[in-house]
Every structure is written in structure tokens, then in C-alpha cells.
């Protein structure tokens, strides 16, 4: 079973499993706050960060991280003022990100960094340093959620009552935004924006179809994430397919299967 012994595959497995835990854990709180598209949208803002960094001569990962954190904080600030327009606010920021990226790229006549190398990483090309970055980020996010699980649950379910309970809802929202932004900015170069954004949403969507509690949804999302990565990696390796896309499609297939089972159960 060379799929387990090859050096690059071992790193891919480890990074895949880190992503399978990290992304659904943070994604659970985003999906339940109707912010499913934020991972994808922050990717657009990161695009502007990379292009802007290349133009001004900054290290692209750092400029992407700075742009996404700033973008996420601004989105949260505006969302707090205009709660009924969450999706509109996300869309405005994403288009602004894309617009900036295109303008920065056109201004950068000297060429510079390859955008695709920063935005569209692959599980199969991960270095040991990348693995450390994803691992450290994953541990930090899991520690954050483990420590603040109930306050975050309170915030997602009933933000107004959480505020009356005396919880610092503004700071919690900002921290969640910063962690989402860092997850997107640091992971997209390593595994690709498609995998990061999709893993924040697809396993949670599967879990929502079967779970009856918040803790069940969170655990279920991690299980669906791990299954999608494992099955997707096998499929992509033996069928010679792109791993990120195969993992995402495996997750979507899980969702369709769960939906069919639920509909069948409801019909009986």
C-alpha cells in the first residue's frame, strides 16, 4: 500500500486530516450564523492581499493574511450594524476584493509572484514546514473552540440573550472572524482555497441532516470531514484525479446520500 508509505503521501494524509478537523469545527459556527460563503469570500479578499503584496514587494502569504484578517474584521463590524443584510455585506466585500485584485495585478507590470502558486496549493505538494503551519493552526483553533465552546454555542444560537448574559459577544465575534481569516489565508496556499472553503461548509451540511443537537452536529461534521478526506484521497490516488476536488465531491456525495436517506425516512 504505497499510498501510506510514500513520503509526500504521508504529509498529504496528515494535512488532510488536520483540515478535516480544523475546517468543520470553525465552519459549524459560521454555517449556523448564515455565513456559509465567508470562507470562499475571504479567499477573494486574500487574492487582493496577494496581488497587493506582490505590487508593494511584501511576502505574499503575509499580505494575504493581513488582507483577510482586515477584511474579516470589517465584514464583522458592518454585519453588526446591518444584521438583516449579512449576505449582501459578504457579497460587497468579495466583489471589492476581486476588484482590488484585478486592479493591483494590472498595475504590477513587472510580473512578480505567481498568484496561482499562492491561491491554489495542493495536498500532494505539501512540505514539512507547511504541515507544521497547518498543525499549529489546527491545534490553536481546536483549543479556542474547546475553551469557549458554550459561549460560542450561545452566540450562534441566540446572540441577543448571550449579550444579556454578560458575555462579550463583540470580542467573541471578532475572534471568530480572525480565526476564520487566518485559517483561509494560511491553509489555501497549502491545500487550495477550494478545499478550505468547502471543508468549512460541506461536512457541516451533511451533519445538519442527521444530528439532533449542537454537540452532535459538531462531532458529526468532523466525522464527515474525516471520511471525505480518507475516501477522497483513496479515489484521487488510484483514479489519478485532483485530490482537492475529489475530496470535495466525496463530501457532496455524502450530503446527497444523507439527504436521500432522510427524504426516504420522511416518506415512510
Amino acid at each position, binding site marked *: 500500500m504505497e499510498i501510506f508509505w510514500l513520503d509526500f503521501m504521508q504529509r498529504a494524509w496528515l494535512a488532510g486530516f488536520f483540515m478535516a478537523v480544523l475546517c468543520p469545527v470553525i465552519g459549524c459556527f459560521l454555517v*449556523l450564523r448564515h455565513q456559509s460563503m465567508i470562507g470562499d469570500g475571504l479567499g477573494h479578499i486574500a487574492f487582493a492581499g496577494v496581488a497587493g503584496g506582490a505590487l508593494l514587494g511584501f511576502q505574499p502569504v503575509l499580505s494575504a493574511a493581513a488582507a483577510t484578517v482586515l477584511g474579516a474584521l470589517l465584514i464583522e463590524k458592518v454585519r453588526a450594524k446591518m444584521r438583516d443584510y449579512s449576505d449582501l455585506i459578504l457579497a460587497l466585500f468579495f466583489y471589492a476584493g476581486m476588484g482590488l485584485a484585478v486592479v493591483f495585478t494590472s498595475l504590477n507590470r513587472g510580473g512578480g509572484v505567481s498568484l496561482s502558486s499562492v491561491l491554489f496549493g495542493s495536498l500532494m505538494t505539501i512540505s514539512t514546514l507547511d504541515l507544521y503551519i497547518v498543525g499549529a493552526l489546527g491545534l490553536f483553533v481546536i483549543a479556542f473552540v474547546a*475553551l469557549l465552546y*458554550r459561549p460560542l*454555542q450561545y452566540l450562534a444560537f441566540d446572540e441577543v440573550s448571550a*449579550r*444579556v448574559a*454578560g458575555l*462579550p459577544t463583540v470580542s467573541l465575534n471578532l475572534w471568530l472572524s480572525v480565526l476564520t481569516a487566518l485559517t483561509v489565508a494560511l491553509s489555501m496556499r497549502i491545500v487550495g482555497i477550494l478545499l478550505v472553503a468547502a471543508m468549512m461548509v460541506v461536512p457541516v451540511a451533511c451533519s445538519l441532516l442527521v444530528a439532533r*443537537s449542537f454537540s452532535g452536529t459538531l462531532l458529526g461534521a468532523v466525522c464527515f470531514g474525516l471520511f471525505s478526506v480518507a475516501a477522497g484521497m483513496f479515489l484521487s490516488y488510484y483514479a489519478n484525479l485532483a485530490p482537492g476536488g475529489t475530496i470535495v465531491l466525496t463530501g457532496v456525495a455524502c450530503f446527497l446520500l444523507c439527504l436521500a436517506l432522510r427524504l426516504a425516512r420522511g416518506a415512510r
Partner: protein
Amino acid sequence: MDTIRLENLGFNYGDGWIFRHLSLTVPAGDFAAVIGANGVGKSTLLRMVARILAPTEGKVFLYGTEVSHFRDWGRLGYVPQNPARRQRSFPISVEEVVQLGRWDGRGLFHRFDRQDREAVEATLARFELRDLRHRKVGELSGGQQQRVFLARAMVNDPELLLLDEPATGIDADAKEALYRMLADLNGRGKTIVMVSHDLEMAARYAKTAICLDDGGLCFFGPIREGLHHRHKHGYFFGGSRMG
């Protein structure tokens, strides 16, 4: 001792005053119903007491402390307009909702311990929710959901209970049961302030009326006197123009 004191309170959403110069005091042990027609600021008033909204002018005091400096949130239980109705598909069980109440006033890093587990168990039993503990809240009836949110507010045994239209969307039997439960809590010494559309129920169970109309506070006092005042002056009361 005064539980709530409002001093010259006014609120403006930016397009005119909802009310101004509103001053009153709710003593400990009272059961006050905030009543009036739609749009006169009943929920706005309650939200300012709960620090969800900041007053445009004037001050709110809770137990003698100005609300922006008040930190003892465990003394207060809040039942919002039903959040489960807004998020019917939200995956949270009855037990998890009641557990959330243990974070009221305890801060971010409170660890859920044996005392918390015992308080949750006792509250589930008291509000007859044990058999429903693993059910998803959004799948329960309106009356059952309201019982869950009341249980969440009561799990810390607070002294003051604020309720924002708790009987909206529930059937007559569930409404009667809810008001009886509130009267029982009031009988055990809890102070209750409740926004209500149901004049008949409020008149039957509450002690004090805080009545608002387009001009602000139009009556504050014993609810039976309020009913007499209503007949005499014919102001908006309970959602319809009474004569």
C-alpha cells in the same frame, strides 16, 4: 428594595421619539406587565432594561447600579421573543438550551461542573422537560419551546425575570399554563417584568401595569386601576383601541 429604576428615559430610532421622560420604579416582588398598542415601544423599553439597547436619553438602574456598569447578570433571567421560531432548523437540544443559562453572569471561562449539572437536572424536572431533553428545540410546539426558554432563564434561580412577549404564537392552554407558571414564580418572590399583548391574561395574573401609548407612559400602577383608567380615557391598550 428597587429592582428596576428608570429615570427620564427616552428612545429615538432616528426618525422620531418612541417615548420620552419615562420614569418609574419596579419594586422587588412585583409582577409588572408592559402593555400598549403595537409600535409604542414596549419591547424597546424591556431591551433597554436588559442592556440590549442603549437609551437615547435618561438612565436605567438595576439594583441601584446604572445598567452600563451592572455586572451581576446572574441575578437576571431574560426570555426573548422566541429564538427557536426564528431558527427552526437550528440543531440544539432542549438540554443544551437549558445548559446555556448557566453561563449567565459567569463569564467566558466558566467550567461546567457538578453544581451546573445538578441545577440543569433540577430545572428540567421542575419545568417537566426531562422527557424532551434530547429533542431538537425547533421541533417542539410553541408552548413547549417557551417552557424551554423559561427554564433557561430560571436555571440560575435569578431574582428578576424579563420576558418579551412570551405568549406570542402559543395556543390558549399553553398560554394559561405559562401565566400560571409565572404567577407561581412571582409567588416565590421573583420579580417579573413582561411585555404582553394579552390584556386579559395580564389583568388576571400581573400586579402592576406599565401602560404605554403614543405619548409615552400613560399609566403606571395597580393593574386593576389601569383597567379602570382605560375605560375612562379610552387609550390604546392591548393592541386595539378600547373605548
